[in-house]
């Protein structure tokens, strides 16, 4: 078990997502930055489908009630084991009663904690990913006990750290494809879309990222149709909604762009105030 002594800003259990159930209106969910979640699992020798903990900006305080191994990947939130700093992207032995805590954010937005064998929390509709109305808990609460496997195998000589390319934490340019309704924008509107530097707004979360700038447009709402994580919707007031992993399955705003998988991962590591441009790779 892992006990939650103190919660962070927003901690959830996530895996690669919930598939095949979107026809019931169920969101995909899954780790916002799937790349970092996969790195954490792979470094431990886990399957990439194991559940990890997604930790956003301010980390929780966790107490391990059995021996295991962990890897932290994604954002560097100054992780500490029993108050001593530990390395990111490195296999670390954790003993019974050890406490994992976090400090200041060095880079990124979301850290991923993988444990050997994966978190064994509630499994609903083929996924461990927490989501309101699907799983009992939609985020960690103080006092929660997260089930994990005890693991006493020796790490051996696994002292190496994986080096992650810094570019993964750079959001300057987001690669996009033209969206289904892109052609309904005027030439000028299309130009504005690719020349504007957008600023990530405070109203960004697992459902959607938003930006402070608006794009004037005259396109009509569409008949409600299908959307995916990465779909960029344009509202009548000119707001851009960049849909993320917990987005609805359908929507009625024009879909002007589709962010690439790789860029969704990078966008998930950005925090409000950061700036980016869209680059068309169609």
């Amino acid at each position, binding site marked *: 078990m892992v006990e939650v002594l103190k919660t962070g800003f927003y901690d959830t259990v996530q895996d690669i997502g919930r*598939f*095949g*159930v*979107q*026809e*019931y*209106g*169920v*969101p995909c969910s899954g780790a916002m930055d799937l790349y970092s979640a996969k790195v954490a699992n792979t470094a431990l020798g886990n399957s990439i489908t194991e559940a990890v903990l997604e930790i956003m900006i301010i980390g929780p305080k966790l107490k391990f009630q059995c021996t295991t191994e962990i890897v932290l990947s994604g954002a560097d939130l100054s992780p500490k084991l029993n108050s001593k700093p530990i390395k990111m992207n490195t296999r670390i032995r954790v003993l019974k009663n050890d406490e994992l805590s976090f400090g200041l954010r060095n880079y990124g937005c979301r850290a991923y904690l993988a444990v050997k064998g994966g978190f064994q929390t509630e499994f*609903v*509709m083929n996924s461990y990913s927490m989501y309101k*109305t*699907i*799983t009992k808990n939609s985020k960690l609460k103080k006092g929660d006990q997260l089930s994990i496997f005890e693991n006493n195998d020796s790490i051996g000589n696994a002292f190496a750290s994986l080096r992650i390319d810094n570019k993964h934490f750079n959001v300057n340019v987001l690669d996009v*494809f033209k969206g*289904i309704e892109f052609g309904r924008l005027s030439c000028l509107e299309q130009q504005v879309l690719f020349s504007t530097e957008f600023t990530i707004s405070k109203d960004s979360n697992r459902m959607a990222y938003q930006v402070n700038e608006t794009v004037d447009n005259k396109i009509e709402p*569409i*008949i*409600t*149709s*299908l959307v*995916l994580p*990465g779909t960029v919707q344009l509202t009548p007031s000119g707001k851009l909604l960049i849909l993320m992993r917990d987005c*609805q*399955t*359908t929507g009625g705003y024009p879909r002007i762009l*589709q962010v*690439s*998988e790789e860029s969704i991962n990078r966008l998930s590591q950005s925090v409000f105030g950061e700036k980016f441009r869209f680059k068309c790779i169609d």
Partner: protein
Amino acid sequence: MKDFKLTYHRFSERSILVQWPQEIDENILKDVLIFKNHLTNLNIESILHVNTAYNSILITYILTIDNAYSEFSALKEAYFTRISNKKSVLKHWNIPVCYDDEFSIDLNEISKETQFSKSEIIRIHSEVIYTVFFIGFLPGFLYLGGLDKRLFFPRKNIPRLEVKKGAVAIGNQQTGIYPNKSPAGWNIIGNSPLEFFNSKEISPCFAKAGDTIQFVPITIEEHNRVLKAVENGTYNLESEIIDG
């Protein structure tokens, strides 16, 4: 079978969107569902999942699509050779709804604006047989076609932060049921005691695209009784098979 003019679009690295003409129409819905069932029956190994809305199908593949145009041709061939599968049985559901003042918090306003009495609104709302076009927006939220024009009513300017589970509502030209507590921009006119989404069931929603439903007005006492029966798992929701 009439062939519609479809358009094929690459949607993301791993998905393709097929679109029918941009209108809400039951013949389009039928064709969308026939094509969806046909694709599912073909058991194409590279396809992970197929999902539908009013006039589109989203096909998600397991791997990144190498050549979208060769997938488009394969889909076109599948469309022109589609066969209607009679195995997908469509059903009609009678949904109990309590329009009592305790739940129908916006009924007075709609009555005032539309000049229809509350009982007329309830009668019009519960007389129609609605078609389920698809499920979206929230887990278990049915997109229903068929609302009587006389009940078209704009969404609220400021959405409510929370409405009750089972709230029955009208928003613009649509009516629907909130399957769980949720923020809501539509006008609430009643409440259904049924469970519209249960993540523990193999079929989490009883209704599916193509089914029809009708609202049956019930008293508040009946609402309480059904709610208890639903919670105890002793409520038997009846349905009849309709000819698709």
